[in-house]
């Protein structure tokens, strides 16, 4: 029996009944990596620490290359951090290790999570397992591709504007961004601190609940971590949506929505209605401004967070070829110019511009105010709805190289996912169909803060009544 295609819960059943061992599962996944990794390139490096199979949930896991893991090289897919060996475990990594998780390796991503396609990585792109000509999405594209290609049983990613959900959608798997504060950010290399959140990428909704049980919870080392009780998320896996109210924003049918994605969304609405949910048209009038708001707020925070990479203490230090200003400034500039790729430079400069004297009020402060309006829109809808449904992305996976020359068109692919980050609420992407060309289509559900259970319940019900999640790419 092949073990690598199985979900985590199926593997745990097999371990329990003695049909397979954790070591066999791990070795089977390594065999799968050997077979398909040359095509997919989901990983940037294998874990160095030798696996321990004695824990309670010894599931092979892939970690995004921005999650600090003790004695492992962690680089955020950037030249500026090459060779950085983390001296400590982040909060989620401690939890994964405590649960018995077996770390397989570190997955590719856009450099510092700046991108929606995995193409800005200093290691080169990851390829979509469903069509190797296409991107896997981003920024957690390596994590999503690893799970979709069965090179990991599940994975962790981080989501600042859709970086878990959009690649999950492009790769035909489940991806959840939890409520801001639900999961510790301690040890996550920061992109935009008020938006970043770590979350699971899994083969089905039950696995998403299981991985949430492992990673969710308070951590005093993250001052934005929220000390709220953590439920058993598997209890939310109820195949019943009767009486629930699901909002569909009329803004979701905006220009740029692919007709096949739209058709999948409409089919999902019809199915949820048939299963007893009430579907109600709602409005989020300020969401058309979400992308503009995000690219001010996120880049401003990024420019500040990335100021620490200066060659002084750790990471790359590059010596200037010729003297320009003074020795110290020349070293800073040489290090940052050689260490950061073009998209990182672009975002750092954009954020610096939005925060610079004379522009702060016009850009950053204005962005934060529009953020309030977007959050108010969502609060208003949630007074009367249990969840909101939209597509995850306006299109299916695009071709490698298609959007690299036009950053703005790349940014617009996050139009549906960004509002949840700005408002801090949880959101999930689940497999919702396939295009005629055979590429996965994702559906997004957004919920009230700390109501991940509602998203899991609706997703589970949808999944139990469809078969999209059972399909596998041919590799």
């Amino acid at each position: 029996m092949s073990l690598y295609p199985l979900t985590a819960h199926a593997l745990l059943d097999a371990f329990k009944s003695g049909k397979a061992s954790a070591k066999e599962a791990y070795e089977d996944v390594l065999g799968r990596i050997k077979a398909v990794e040359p095509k997919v390139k989901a990983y940037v490096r294998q874990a160095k620490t030798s696996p321990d199979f004695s824990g309670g949930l010894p599931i092979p896991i892939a970690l995004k290359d921005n999650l600090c893991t003790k004695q492992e090289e962690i680089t955020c897919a950037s030249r500026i951090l090459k060779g950085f060996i983390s001296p400590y475990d982040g909060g989620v990594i401690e939890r994964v290790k405590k649960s018995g998780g077996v770390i397989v390796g570190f997955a590719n991503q856009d450099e510092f999570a700046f991108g929606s396609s995995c193409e800005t990585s200093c290691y080169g792109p990851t390829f979509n397992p469903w069509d190797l000509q296409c991107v896997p999405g981003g920024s957690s594209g390596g994590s999503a591709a690893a799970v979709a290609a069965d090179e990991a049983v599940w994975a962790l990613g981080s989501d600042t504007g859709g970086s878990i959900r959009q690649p999950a959608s492009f790769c035909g798997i489940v991806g959840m961004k939890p409520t801001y504060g639900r999961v510790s950010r301690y040890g996550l290399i920061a992109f935009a601190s008020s938006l970043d959140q770590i979350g699971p990428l899994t083969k089905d909704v039950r696995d998403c609940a299981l991985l949430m049980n492992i990673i969710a919870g308070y951590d005093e080392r993250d001052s934005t971590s929220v000390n709220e009780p953590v439920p058993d998320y598997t209890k939310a896996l109820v195949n019943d949506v009767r009486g629930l109210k699901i909002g569909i924003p009329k803004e979701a049918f905006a220009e740029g929505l692919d007709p096949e994605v739209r058709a999948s969304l409409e089919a999902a609405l019809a199915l949820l209605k048939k299963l007893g949910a009430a579907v109600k048209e709602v409005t989020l009038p300020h969401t058309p401004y979400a992308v503009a708001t995000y690219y001010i707020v996120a880049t401003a925070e990024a420019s500040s967070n990335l100021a620490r990479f200066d060659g002084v203490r750790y990471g790359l230090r590059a010596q200037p070829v010729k003297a320009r200003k003074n020795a110290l400034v020349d070293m800073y500039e040489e290090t940052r110019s050689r260490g950061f790729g073009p998209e990182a430079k672009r975002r750092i400069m954009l954020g610096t511009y939005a925060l610079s004297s004379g522009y702060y009020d016009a850009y950053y402060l204005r962005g934060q105010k529009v953020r309030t309006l977007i959050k108010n829109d969502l609060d208003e809808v949630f007074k009367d709805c249990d969840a909101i449904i939209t597509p995850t992305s306006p299109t299916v996976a695009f071709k490698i190289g298609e959007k690299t020359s036009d950053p703005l068109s790349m940014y617009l692919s996050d139009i549906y996912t960004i509002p949840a980050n700005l408002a801090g609420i949880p959101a999930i992407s689940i497999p919702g169909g396939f295009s005629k060309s055979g590429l996965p289509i994702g559906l997004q559900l957004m919920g009230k803060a700390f109501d991940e259970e509602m998203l899991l319940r609706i997703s589970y019900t949808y999944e139990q009544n469809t078969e999209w999640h059972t399909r596998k790419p041919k590799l």
Partner: protein
Amino acid sequence: MSISKKDVKYVAALARIDLPEEDLEGFTQTLGKIVHYVEQLQKLNLDNVKPTSHAVPVGNVFRSDAVKPSLTNSQSLAIAVEAKDGCFKVPLVIE
């Protein structure tokens, strides 16, 4: 408002990035396009709207002022570009 090459040079210097002349044109164009796109926020009336810096408001978070186990000196210095006498060795700052 459009972005000029001079603006990009200025911002690059603030961000401690040395942009070679041949990259300046490309960054001026892409940044100009993005700044033009975000200009749409100027259309909104934001009088009396409070800014949101964190979506989930958390007040001041305190912990007890107690010593806890942390990284040792040698663990911390293992990541240093240069280390000397138990310290991070940094480039000369004041000449």
